[in-house]
């Protein structure tokens, strides 16, 4: 997969939002074919301010406010990519992307295949996703299962400030369409990104062991990574030394990193916000079981959002996988009975 080396930066980004902004700025500065487009991305800088200042710096043709119509936005981006541009599309909120699904599934995901590779579409589709921000209905969906079920799409989701920069640069550089899922509740998470020593940006398709451990592996991504790291710390009191794997990329799926970890620990729990039935965790659990059957001391378990429409803000804390639910599930891994 494409690996992009981050160039040294002069301003330390303080938040994931700023890292994403910086990634687009750098990509636009280096490549005149990169165009940012969507509703409110121009003067307003996006409702989350992720595109702040881009229209001012690169002009309204490079950071383009479009009419409010997601199918039109993505459909126009298809035509722009057909002509050699690299559109970076903002979908504003997870559930607002649904009107664009026909374009996404019938054209974006399939154009390379339909044309025998003659017409790849280098489109990056940024989708702020997930809950935990007290948003009202239609503002907190975790829609990754729809995307990962669509062949032809690459699906990535950063969980750290550094990855937000690196994965977005790699997504924009990719010759394939990428669904870039932004965990919106981490937009304001603090940076540990040192501008003096920028790490090599991860290529798409590489998972990372965020915390080494020996008792069991927590497999997670995006908004659930900080929760898993917190759970791993808390689990130490219970005598559990948990390893935490951050997938970073759902498609392609870095099976090797996951399998190596589970073979070391012998136990695995998959954690994500989206519903469990038909969710990414079901696929991961199946793959881990196939590849690690003789290494497993217990069935692969999952901690996911409930299989319900996303709840109203006052109930979301009961729905989202939290530290306690993860610890309770880890306790079930003592498969002695």
């Amino acid at each position: 997969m494409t690996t992009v080396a981050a160039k040294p930066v002069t301003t330390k980004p303080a938040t994931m939002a700023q890292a994403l902004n910086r990634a687009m700025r750098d990509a636009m500065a280096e490549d005149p074919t990169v165009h940012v487009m969507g509703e409110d991305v121009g003067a307003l800088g996006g409702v989350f301010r992720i595109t702040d200042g881009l229209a001012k710096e690169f002009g309204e043709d490079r950071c383009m406010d479009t009419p409010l119509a997601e199918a039109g936005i993505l459909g126009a981006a298809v035509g722009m990519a057909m002509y050699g541009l690299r559109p970076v599309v903002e979908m504003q909120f997870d559930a607002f992307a649904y009107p664009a699904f026909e374009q996404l599934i019938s054209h974006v995901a399939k154009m390379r295949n339909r044309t025998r590779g003659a017409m790849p579409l280098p489109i990056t589709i940024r989708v702020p996703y997930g809950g935990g921000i007290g948003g009202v209905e239609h503002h907190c969906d975790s829609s990754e299962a729809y995307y990962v079920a669509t062949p032809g799409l690459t699906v990535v989701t950063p969980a750290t400030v550094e990855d937000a920069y690196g994965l977005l640069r790699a997504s924009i550089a990719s010759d394939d369409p990428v669904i870039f899922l932004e965990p919106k509740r981490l937009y304001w998470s603090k940076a540990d990104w040192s501008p003096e020593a920028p790490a090599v940006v991860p290529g798409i398709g590489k998972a990372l062991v965020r915390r080494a451990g020996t008792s069991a592996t927590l497999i997670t991504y995006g908004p659930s990574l900080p929760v898993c790291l917190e759970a791993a710390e808390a689990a130490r009191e219970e005598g559990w030394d948990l390893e935490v794997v951050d997938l970073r990329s759902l498609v392609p799926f870095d099976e090797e990193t996951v399998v190596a970890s589970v073979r070391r620990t012998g136990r695995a729990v998959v954690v994500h916000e989206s519903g469990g039935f038909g969710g990414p965790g079901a696929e991961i659990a199946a793959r881990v079981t196939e590849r690690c059957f003789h290494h497993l001391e217990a069935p692969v378990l999952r901690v996911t959002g409930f299989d319900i429409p996303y709840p109203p803000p006052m109930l979301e804390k009961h729905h989202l996988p939290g530290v306690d639910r993860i610890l309770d599930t880890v306790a079930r891994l003592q498969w002695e009975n």
Partner: protein
Amino acid sequence: MTVQELPGAGASHRSTQPPAWRPRTDAAPLLPDPEPYRVLGTPAADRLDPELMRRCYAELVRGRRYNAQATALTRQGRLAVYPSTVGQEACEIAAALVLEDQDWLFPSYRDTLAAVARGLDPVQALTLLRGDWHTGYDPREHRIAPLSTPLATQLPHAVGLAHAARLRGDDVVALAMVGDGGTSEGDFHEAMNFAAVWQAPVVFLVQNNGFAISVPLAKQTAAPTLAHKAVGYGMPGRLVDGNDIAAMHEVLSEAVRRARSGGGPTMIEAVTYRIEAHTNADDATRYRGDAEVEAWKAHDPIELLERELTARGLLDEAGIQAAKDAAEEMAAALRDGMNAEPVVDPMDLFAHVYAEQTDRLREQAAMLRAELDAAEQEAAELEEGDPS
């Protein structure tokens, strides 16, 4: 509380006047003509370009033959399906002829003939319908987007491409084709709106052939004409006789010129008729009568032009025969091309999903490879053991 009692229900309750408001443009110049625009058989035909019209005639005859040959190929099982454009050839040919080399055509699934008239190899144009691959040509090489099966979804692509070309300073016009049924789709609306807001160099050609499979126009829209839809987006709507190739060529050329010179998009409704069924899988007798079909057959695009040109002495028997001969030549080449058994490589299933193969697909490709090898070996063993 009654309606009258509701605050703000009557104008008399206003304490202030709303800010001044006026429509952004005068709608009148955008409105279509009340009758479809016609040239053939009218005084306007005096200004016909003989060379262009002879070429149009030859293309129409070739197009009719292409339709007949493709339909015959479905009966022979060579094509899975063929959506015929018999009766609509003038729209298809005019759309192809008004474009320059650098321009782009965005056809729907019914518009293979437009792609062929633009110069695409007839066999390549039918790959999708034959079933050996989804698109049989490189869209960039021919500047013809893949034939689009989902309705109206290719229209926003045309807008995006035209917009991108303009951003790059290139002289490119996109012509997007859609049927009357497609005008009900959300993507039609969004494409028209984007094109008008961006003043993109796009021409939308709606072929109103009377039916969306079986549903007649009256059940499709309540608008006076489809061309009226353009007004709401802020672009001109033109209503044209879709069987009159001179009128089609003139109106399309004017729209292309307008787009090329920065005048923005135009929407054209070509009033025409689908003489044959939706596809070979459709039974058109269930939803329309013979009388209607016969009336439209009497308004045939080829005959209209032939009458005009022969009356004016611009076409003679030799010219008619030459067009027929050229059409037969094309049909023979098409038959030959389609009768050659297409070669498909099963491993192509995995070849064009991603730029770089994923581990998952590599694994599945290996599985298929093993199945193919096993089948090949089995076949070889059978042959060895065959006493004959």
